[in-house]
């Protein structure tokens, strides 16, 4: 932490400069601690690899090559980041209100299914922009209602939002399976139960010159918009009061229940949109491939980004890169595909532990009042 020890503002007597320096000192805490946590999880994972008789150096260099080394791996990484950004938003927005939502995967699955289902009758006649617009809307509505339901259960009945969102994920998967193996199954696809494809011509295209679809741009724009919502609007301010101290929010007469509901609905809409993008840009139909774990990795992204929508983008790219390198690691090191999941799990664990260090490291302790 030596590089952070000499901020100019600390010794200055100009109050503006000191405020600025103080803010910088405090915000650097939000970088230093997660970076340290990543470092520690890297060490722990190295121990894991050594126990398997593999070289950690090989592993990390393969992750680098598979995730970020070539333009091909970069594109692979970015394709995986797009849904991660959106599912991370599904965690980050309610987290500002003190709600821990871990069921984003369910909203993603239902959003993808809703989009694919509404497309079936429209495919024969609807022009592509109309079709995609309606599909996106359907996914937003499905996802929004799904996580909105979690918020409503929490507000009206006091049901723990973490548990209910997780259980609703299983229900969402069952709904998907029920329809793709039944009424909405495409009879022409004998292998994998799926809905009818929306057709190659109707799918979302690539950003020119890349193999990355436009979903990445959607995610980044949403991050900026939601950052502004949480930090530059009265809604966001009220949400932060509610998340920081429920009693204080109530004593200010804030509509706590409505804030929770709306935030959950926004969160679900983001995850639902991720499902739409998976259907409309990758799979072309809804099937069990939607359940790829993006919703769960999104939890890790959001926690690593400390629920800050702007930080979510680079963190999602980082974790997207780790996921993208899974194949290469598997081939070259003869390690199972799930190895990168072990790394993810370790990172999450260490990040959760690192949460307890905020404000405890000597450098970040308050300097106390000026007298």
């Amino acid at each position, binding site marked *: 932490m030596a590089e952070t020890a000499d901020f100019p503002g600390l010794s200055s007597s100009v*109050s503006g400069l000191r*405020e600025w320096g103080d803010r910088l000192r405090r915000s650097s805490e939000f970088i230093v601690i997660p970076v340290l946590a990543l470092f520690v999880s890297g060490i722990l994972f190295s121990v894991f690899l050594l126990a398997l008789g593999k070289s950690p150096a090989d592993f990390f260099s393969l992750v680098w090559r598979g995730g970020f080394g070539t333009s091909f791996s970069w594109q692979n990484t970015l394709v995986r980041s797009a849904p991660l950004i959106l599912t991370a938003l599904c965690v980050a927005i309610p987290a500002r209100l003190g709600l821990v939502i871990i069921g984003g995967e369910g909203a993603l699955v239902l959003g993808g299914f809703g989009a694919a289902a509404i497309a079936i009758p429209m495919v024969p006649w609807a022009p592509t922009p109309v079709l995609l617009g309606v599909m996106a809307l359907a996914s937003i509505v499905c996802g929004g209602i799904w996580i909105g339901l979690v918020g409503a259960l929490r507000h009206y009945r006091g049901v723990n939002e973490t548990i209910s969102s997780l259980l609703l994920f299983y229900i969402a998967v069952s709904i998907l399976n029920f329809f793709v193996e039944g009424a909405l199954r495409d009879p022409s696809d004998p292998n994998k139960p799926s809905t009818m494809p929306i057709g190659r011509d109707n799918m979302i295209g690539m950003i020119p010159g890349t193999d990355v679809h436009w979903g990445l741009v959607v995610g980044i724009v949403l991050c900026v918009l939601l950052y502004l919502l949480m930090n*530059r609007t*009265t809604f966001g301010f009220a949400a932060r009061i509610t998340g*920081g*101290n429920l009693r*204080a929010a109530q004593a200010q*007469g804030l509509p706590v229940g409505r804030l929770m509901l709306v935030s959950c609905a926004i969160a679900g809409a983001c995850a639902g949109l991720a499902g739409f993008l998976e259907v409309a840009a990758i799979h072309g139909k809804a099937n069990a491939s939607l359940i790829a774990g993006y919703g769960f990795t999104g939890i890790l992204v959001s926690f690593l980004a400390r629920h800050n929508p702007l930080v979510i983008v680079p963190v999602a790219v980082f974790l997207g890169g780790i996921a993208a390198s899974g194949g290469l690691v598997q081939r070259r090191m003869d390690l199972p595909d799930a190895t990168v999941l072990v790394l993810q799990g370790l990172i999450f664990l260490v990040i959760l532990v690192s949460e307890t260090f905020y404000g405890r490291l000597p450098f970040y302790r308050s300097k106390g009042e000026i007298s």
Partner: protein
Amino acid sequence: MAVLQSRPEGARRAIGLETIGMTKAFGPLVALDDVSIRVRPGSFHALLGENGAGKSTLVKCVMGFYQPTSGSALVNDREVSIPNPKAAHALGIGMVYQHFTLVPSLTAAENLVISRADTPAVIDWAKERKALEAFLETTPFKVPLDMPVSGLSAGEKQKLEILKQLYLDQSFLILDEPTSVLTPDEADEVLGLLRGMTEAGELTILMITHKFREVTAYADEVTVLRRGRMVGSGKVSDLSIDDMSRMMIGDTAIRESAARKAHSGEPLKLEIAGLFADDDEELPALEAVNLKVRCGEILGIAGVSGNGQSELIQVLSGQRLPSDGRIFIDGKPYEPERKLMDSFKVFGFSEEPLRNAAVPRMSVAENMAFRTFDKVPISPFRGWLSPSPMLKKARDLIAAYRVKTPSTEEPIENLSGGNVQRAILAREISGEVEVLIVANPCFGLDFASVAEIRAQIMDQRNRGAAVLLVSEDLDEILELADTVAVMSEGRITYTSPMDRTDRATIGHAMAGHH
């Protein structure tokens, strides 16, 4: 039982305690600076000081919770080392805390027996009962043994806490503000009994307090701490209350209490009609509470902690739903939601602002904007939030209310208690206030802050605001209120204009004699 039986009857003797140059530093902060006190065997010694003066640090060093940075402790003139609370107990030093440490679902007898370090795995209750009764014979305290502690009154619980220390054979008791949860009558009874035991030479007492009345009525000697240093000590009989309070406060300028402006025939402002509410266990906490507050009047609600006052405040501030009843302001129905709070100009603050009124991790500026963030100029157009007017407003309030903070950006949790309360006070009363709902506003604050905050409340009253003041500090009510109401077991049991009542009458009503 080994401890008790090994002690011959009546041989329990008070011990003396002395600290020499006791110093305790937490990093750069010196909480206790070269404090030497002498508590003679069999004396009733009061330890006076404001919050943060170092009283608790001193007793925690003596109890072995902290290790002093330097200095030593002497028991009966012999130097002792107290590495942990167990060592303190072995020396006969016990402590009674401000809040109860009993298990509510167990009976008094069970609480006593399990408190022993050598409780056997299988308890022979018949034998224990006999021993307990024999033990109770030797003390003046009488407590029902077979009732669950949750059914005891606060006074009985406090007696049981003291009994527990005596049962554990402690002969030097440290009492930390032992009367804060008692009615005046209960306090007098408990302190009187303890006084009797010290006079008989059975017990030595070191009592932390800030109530001068208790010092003059019960203590033999007093030591005063200020900012970690010992600033005076002596026989209580040689000192006047003025002397002691000057020692406690030092040269700090205390704001004079604002004069009470006479009002007459002011209109009714706030009316609470037939209010019922349940507590967290869904038991009735408020039963048919009716209250009226006029413009320019402070209605003080007195009562022993836990008789429904906190539930009343929660209902009035929107933190708890009433099960029945109405609130009216200016004769119109009122509910604690933001729009009505703004249109009726209802404000309020309470004890422990970090828990009740602030978001600890948000900055001072943000915390000061809770009432104004959705209004011009901070929100210049609908829904948008503009940071620079927020900062400007915070700077103005910080200056006007002398909030000590390194910057507007400091998380409010890093400020001292008095400054947090001042920041919240600034937020709540800097605008136009018509109804002010206040609960224990000075709890845990130093003298200067207390005087400042009480004066501000009086100012609001003089300006014509209707003030509802709930306080567990009877002195605060006696000082501020125009009308006093006593709350007991969720009901208003006594109401009187302040000039037609007195401390004793209110105290009896608090105890439920009405």
